[in-house]
């Protein structure tokens, strides 16, 4: 359409764009329908999820009674059920080629499974693992090396295994600790990190065959995840309701704190673009954060979703998968208002214009208000209020103490560093 772009003919362009931005942000809320579906079938608490490195549609999940299920997410169907362990399945990982799935459980076994479906299996015959390693260690988590057959497990200590060798090739020890989560860095491949129950986060170097650094937080970290696009950045889910992002080179000063949960954060995962973060919490909500912001951009909850045990961001950056206490796995959209499927050019352009408008007018109070408005469950709402009161009172107390002390005796600690106890060499 031919237009006259002379600004003198468009005296109200700012106002019109502002109105459009308001409409865009309202439409965003109208179309925000994040819940895609649930994968129902586990007979116990879903304890862990595993994402296949090459296949987006394949999901593996383990539960508390030792079953591992393979799902086809696209069809929302369980395609395989494996009776893998007796007791909890604690971790699922994959070899870099994606052909083998490694599962560890409370029965101290490491099992290797083919990720491809067996061509023919007689009805009623229990499928058995390709290979198993019975160990004498407690196994709480497993993570694979990005390039080789090595994988690490943790429990009483961090162990490094290689392929199908029956004994660990390396044991990392540093004090007495029991570790609950271990993760290999997928880019800087020889570095791995683990969370310990003594409130510390540890870094290991497998080439140097030694732990290299430890940072102690005020409370225990539950899970850890490396940023896939920023190899020196990792984030931990902490018991103190927050998540922390660290640069592994400056452990004393966290890069960011992600606040908003009102109970312990159980699990977290970076988006494959490394720009966002998903956390699952004991407060029965899932929250999405942008890595450079301190508060969540989105909160997901349903009436029936109970405490979260694991969260996962799919490798195409479109969906989020959550496993929870009440035996279900849920599929969510990563952008709640996103239209799925193929878009026509005009539609796509209109949507990206809307996005740009939202971005442009984000600081305007009305736009901000609508964009941030969320309904949360009552218990979360109440807990937030309570936490706010606690926080205010604490800061008031600190202020009073500072006001009535000798100047300089009560130092001002930045919020990000408040919960860092020590960095240990």
């Amino acid at each position, binding site marked *: 359409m031919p237009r006259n*772009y002379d600004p003198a003919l468009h005296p109200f362009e700012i106002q019109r764009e502002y109105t459009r931005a308001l409409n865009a942000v309202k439409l965003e809320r109208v179309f925000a329908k994040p819940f895609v579906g649930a994968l129902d079938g586990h007979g116990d608490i879903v304890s862990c999820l595993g994402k296949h490195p090459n296949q987006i549609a394949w999901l593996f999940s383990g539960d508390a009674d030792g079953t591992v299920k393979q799902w086809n997410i696209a069809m929302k169907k369980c395609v395989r059920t494996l009776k893998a362990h007796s007791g909890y399945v604690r971790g699922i990982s994959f070899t870099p080629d994606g052909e083998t799935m490694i599962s560890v459980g409370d029965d101290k076994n490491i099992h290797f499974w083919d990720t491809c479906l067996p061509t023919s299996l007689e009805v009623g015959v229990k499928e058995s693992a390709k290979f198993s390693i019975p160990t004498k260690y407690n196994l709480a988590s497993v993570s694979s090396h990005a390039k080789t057959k090595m994988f690490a497990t943790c429990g009483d200590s961090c162990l490094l295994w290689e392929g199908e060798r029956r004994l660990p090739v390396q044991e990392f020890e540093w004090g007495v600790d029991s570790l609950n989560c271990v993760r290999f860095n997928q880019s800087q491949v020889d570095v791995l990190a683990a969370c310990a129950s003594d409130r510390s986060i540890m870094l290991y170097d497998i080439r*140097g*065959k030694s732990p290299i650094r430890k940072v102690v937080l005020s409370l225990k970290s539950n899970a850890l995840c490396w940023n896939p*696009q920023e190899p020196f950045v990792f984030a931990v889910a902490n018991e103190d309701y927050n998540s922390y992002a660290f640069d592994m080179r400056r452990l004393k000063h966290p890069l960011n704190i992600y606040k908003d949960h009102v109970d312990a954060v159980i699990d977290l995962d970076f988006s494959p673009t490394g720009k966002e973060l998903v956390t699952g919490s004991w407060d029965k909500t899932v929250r999405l954060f942008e890595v450079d912001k301190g508060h969540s951009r989105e909160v997901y909850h349903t009436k029936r979703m109970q405490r979260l045990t694991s969260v996962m961001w799919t*490798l195409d*950056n479109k969906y989020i998968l959550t496993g929870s206490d009440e035996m279900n796995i849920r599929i969510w959209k990563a952008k709640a208002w996103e239209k799925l499927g193929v878009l026509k050019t005009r539609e796509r352009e209109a949507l990206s214009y809307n996005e740009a408008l939202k971005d442009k007018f984000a*600081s305007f109070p009305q736009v901000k208000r609508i964009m941030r408005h969320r309904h949360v469950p009552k218990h979360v709402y109440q807990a937030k209020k309570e936490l706010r009161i606690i926080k205010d009172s604490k800061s008031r107390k600190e202020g009073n103490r500072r006001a009535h002390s000798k100047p300089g005796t009560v130092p001002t600690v930045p919020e990000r560093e408040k919960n860092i106890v020590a960095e240990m060499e």
Partner: protein
Amino acid sequence: MESLLKGQFSDEDESYEDDSDGPIESAAGNGEAGGDEDEVGHSGLLETLGAKRRDLGLKGKALKITEFQSISNDDRGELPTFRGVKALRDARKKKKKSKVSKDEDEGDDEDFIDDMQDDPTMTKPILERSKRSALYENVKKDVSKWNAVVYHNRAAEQLVFPLRSGEKISKRSIKDAADEFVPQTPLEEEMAKILYGDDYVQKKKAELHSKDDGKTEDESYNLSVEEALEMHKEMARLRALQSYEMAKAKRRSKIKSKTYHRLLRKEKIKKQMKDFEELKLKDPGAAIEKLQELEVSRIRERMTLKHRNTSKWAKSHAARAKYDKDSRIALSEQLKLSKDLTQKQAVSSDESEDEEVESHQKDGDAYQVKDLDINPSEFNIETLANSKKFSSLNLLALRSLATPETAPEVDHSLTSANLINPKNFLVINPKFHAVKELTIDSELLQDDSEVLNEEEDQRMVIAEAFEDDDVVADFQQRKSDEVDASKPKDIDLTLPGWGDWGGKDVVKRKKKQKRILRKGPPPPRRKDARLSHVIINETANAKFREHQVRNLPFPFKRVQDFEKTIRAPIGRTWLPEKATKNLTAPKVITKLGAVIKPLNEDFLVKKTPGRGDVGGHVKLVRSTKITK
């Protein structure tokens, strides 16, 4: 697995070596040592390993086997052993300060661990701690190689996932090009024969032929099924386009409507005229050529008499013209065309331009004024004096200006109104130019007088600049304006014509106007009526306030910058399509169903010696935005 590991570590410049752990590790390190000797010793070593394993298994301790046994460093003895961590650190710091080359420094880092372990005075915890910190420093350094990629991606305006790692950049030197050159034309062959001899030419030719053959073969086989399909599609598309165009042209040519053709013709002529005008501005030479072409066509027209009333068509129309309006119009148009075509074009030659200039000079003042404006350096006082316009100038003063000796005596009152006709603002220019020129050019001036002069000037300039700066009066003025603006206005309801005389220069009747004028209500009392130093904005609206931004958003430092971003529209109502697309392009684009892999080493380029300290360099720089 073995091979993978090997590859991985053989590539490394720096190896983390730690081979003082005992025989078990060295036995297990079969993967690294390589060579025939190891093949021989391998079985023996394995046996030892097995025995140890069993022992350890019984004890219930995890076996510590290293897979990363690197080649032992024999010349380790050269480095001194250190007595403590602190001493060692100090030494390292010193080394860094003394600008030892980086490679040496790294080597030092690795040996440091071994030195520690060799030192018998070290207790185990201290030893471990120092080992850990050394390793940590190493890993820190190593992981910083991602800096460049990560920071580039963070700052990127748009990221398209899955990220592409850059293709290899081929570096083609002049020498390569020279080597590849094959003489082909007779002249080239001759030259090559002279330079390199006959054999060389023959050889090159043979190479070329063989290459050609190879190429044709390659090309015939290179096309994959997809490519072939693609090509086929492309061809089909082109053919379809061509046929559409042909059909369009055919349809157009069949249109019988005279009006249509007339309009078409008119449009064409208009377009030609416009093109010619443009051409005249852009390329006068080409325009003249075009004119000449027109001249030729005119001559041809005169010869052929094509558009006169002698043709068969014209005659038939002439017969009908009496009764048929259309044919009359057509005929007259034809004649007009003929007239246009045969009319001689008035071409402005160079001579006429010269004449114009001369006449200007004769006019005198006009031309000189122009001259003064354009080139003040050529300003001539005599001519200025001759001109009538500047007669009001104090010529003497001007004369004194022009001569360098008397320059310090320039009277600044020259600018005052009594000397210069204030309406003739142009005359001020030459004066200043003259002053400027003199101060720059004349080296005869005495220094102190010059300084004095400049100071005086400066003072004058400042005084002039702030001459009418009365802040208080300004404020009062602003306030009174504000008050006036906020007062309710009288409404004039007089209509022209009612009970009035008509025609030109009719005076409005004051009495009537007064009678019909609706007086506005008395203004409400202003809040700042008694506050002489304050203006209170009474039109501020609380309803607007809830739409207004209170605090400056984060990345902005100045309100003006933020306002600027808001003021610039991004929609396509106000911007061309492409600009909108660029402005609204998403920051992150992901492809539906495509796996986004973690960052890997393909995104790094090996550090070349002599470059900057940052390990990784970004390989790929996207130049174009994808507008999605």
